[in-house]
């Protein structure tokens, strides 16, 4: 694989469609993400935001169109799917930590099983990541013993342990109490500054404004509008965008 130039797209989606039975959930999504970009996706509930980012690591299958991640096309080929999953990490709204494993085991599981690393190496990197997300002292605890904010930071560390190129976040702070949102957003901001390519579904507009390179507004399975945070906030073109922004910025 050739070294990616910073201007090369690392994710290319062309005319992506997805149906759930009769329901047309994604109606022709086009998106190119360059290496190191931070993309924020927002829009009303049920607009297909989750569905879209979940097609990128094949948690959902798209039925037509093309998705290419780091020059690997997503097809029915299991090898491609596995290769893409090694390059992308995902952070879920509900954290989805493994409750039967300690924090350290949660983080080292995939490096040990997928990358077949030595235990010492995996644990060393896991501890570095726990330092980075600010909770090294929790390594031996179980997820059930942590607060929501701590759990979500472990989930981020767990994804990062795979040494990946792309991070997908699906409403990472929506299940958190207000005082914990900041600790997770701080970790995400630091991650963005370190040059990670990020796709973030979120309604945290402060985060979007300060960190996002581009924002995409989704409605009814389509991209209604996209642009820099400046453009979207100060000069939205579409009525639907204006309406939605006025609703979420009110409170």
């Amino acid at each position: 694989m050739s070294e990616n130039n910073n201007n090369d797209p690392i994710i290319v989606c062309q005319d992506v469609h997805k149906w759930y039975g009769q329901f047309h959930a994604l109606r022709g999504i086009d998106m190119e993400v360059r290496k190191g970009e931070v993309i924020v996706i927002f829009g009303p509930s049920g607009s297909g935001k989750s569905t879209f980012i979940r097609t990128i690591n094949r948690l959902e299958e798209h039925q037509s169109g093309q998705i290419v991640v780091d020059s690997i096309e997503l097809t029915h080929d299991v090898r491609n799917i596995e290769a893409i999953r090694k390059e992308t990490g995902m952070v879920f709204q509900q954290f989805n930590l493994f409750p039967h494993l300690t924090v350290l085991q949660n983080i080292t599981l995939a490096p040990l099983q997928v990358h077949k690393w030595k235990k010492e190496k995996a644990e060393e990197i896991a501890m570095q990541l726990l330092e980075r997300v600010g909770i090294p002292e929790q390594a031996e605890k179980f997820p059930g013993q942590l607060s929501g904010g701590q759990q979500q930071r472990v989930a981020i560390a767990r994804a990062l342990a795979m040494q990946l190129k792309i991070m997908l976040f699906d409403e990472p702070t929506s299940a958190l109490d207000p005082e914990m949102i900041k600790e997770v957003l701080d970790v995400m901001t630091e991650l963005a500054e370190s040059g990670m390519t990020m796709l973030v579904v979120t309604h945290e507009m402060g985060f979007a404004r300060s960190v996002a390179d581009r924002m995409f507004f989704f409605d009814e399975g389509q991209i209604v509008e996209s642009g820099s945070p400046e453009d979207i906030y100060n000069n939205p073109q579409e009525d639907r965008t204006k309406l939605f922004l006025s609703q979420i910025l009110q409170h």
Partner: protein
Amino acid sequence: MEKTHTTQQATIPFWRDERVLRVLGQIIFLIAVIVFGYYIYNNMITALAKQGMTPSFAFLNQTAGFDIGERLIEYERADFNKRAVLVAVLNTVQVSIVGIILSTILGVFLGIARLSTNFLVAKLSSIYLEILRNIPLLVLLIFWYTGIFITLPRVKEAISLGTSIFISNRGMVIPWGIPTETWRAYLIVLGVGIVLSAIVNWQLNLVGKRTGRPPLVTLWTIITFLAVAIIGWIALPQSPLTLDLPTLQGLNFKGGYTFSPEYLALLSGLVIYTAAFVGEIVRAGILSVSKGQIEASRALGLNAFQTLRLIVFPQAMRVIVPPLTSQYLNLTKNSSLAVAIGYPDLFAIAGTMHNQTGRSVEVIALMMGIYLSTSLITSVFMNFYNKKIKLVER
């Protein structure tokens, strides 16, 4: 802070101190149990005394005087009652262990089938579960016995499966091994196999601890044992068992091993009934692992097998083990319904013994003691396992 804490505690009157109250509660409960137990015991002794009897287990060392149709060890009617009890216990334990193993296997299949995306498979297994859960076990046992096993053809017209398994109204005869001169040597080989597989198990667990990647420990342990068993069988100059094929001679089969219709009816009834509950437990266990767990695992790059083995299975087991334990205990206790179809289990033989000796209190106490201790042993074992796999919560 620390100081005010202690001074405050020192001033609590004891009747408001929760620590004192907790201990006190236990002591009062214990006293109540002892008083009640003594009252019952006293009552019983007085009642027995009125009939001119004192409780005694001396009857265990008297001749039994009755036959037992099915047994795993040698027994004659001239043997002591205690020998008869042993025969009975072994029968109960044997049918329970075989029943537990078979109902677990069948139940796991049913549970998984009910979750199947194949409509027919899912529907059939859910019908099975619904029907079986709603029929009393006693009815089921009598159905198997009178409706199926003893209405089978007579010995002369026995149904044959293959060339040497025969099913008739006298039960099922299968080929059986007869020990040859090398059998004792082979037992030693099997002992070596157990030791070797224990070593393999131990070493692989160490490897798992060291690398963080647990190998398939159970699988390799079993493979080691089987390998030793097979190599030993081939290497011995004469094979340790010769096959004893059943043949029809006169009115009955000679040779092989016969399972009686009573045993078969009891086993089938217990297995089919318990498997329905096990199936439900397995299904609930699998469903208890949220979809998010599987998605998180797959998103991390673990494949379907790794996800099943490392994420789904360990979590499902936590939900499955406690109710499964009570199903195992139920099966063991339910085996006492054998009395209805004439299989000589503990309950049936205790009944006979009671009739013969008139020692009702002692026989019932003995029987309860035995059921209780088998149940307790099972519970202790399963609780130990359950503790090992329990989740830590906040």
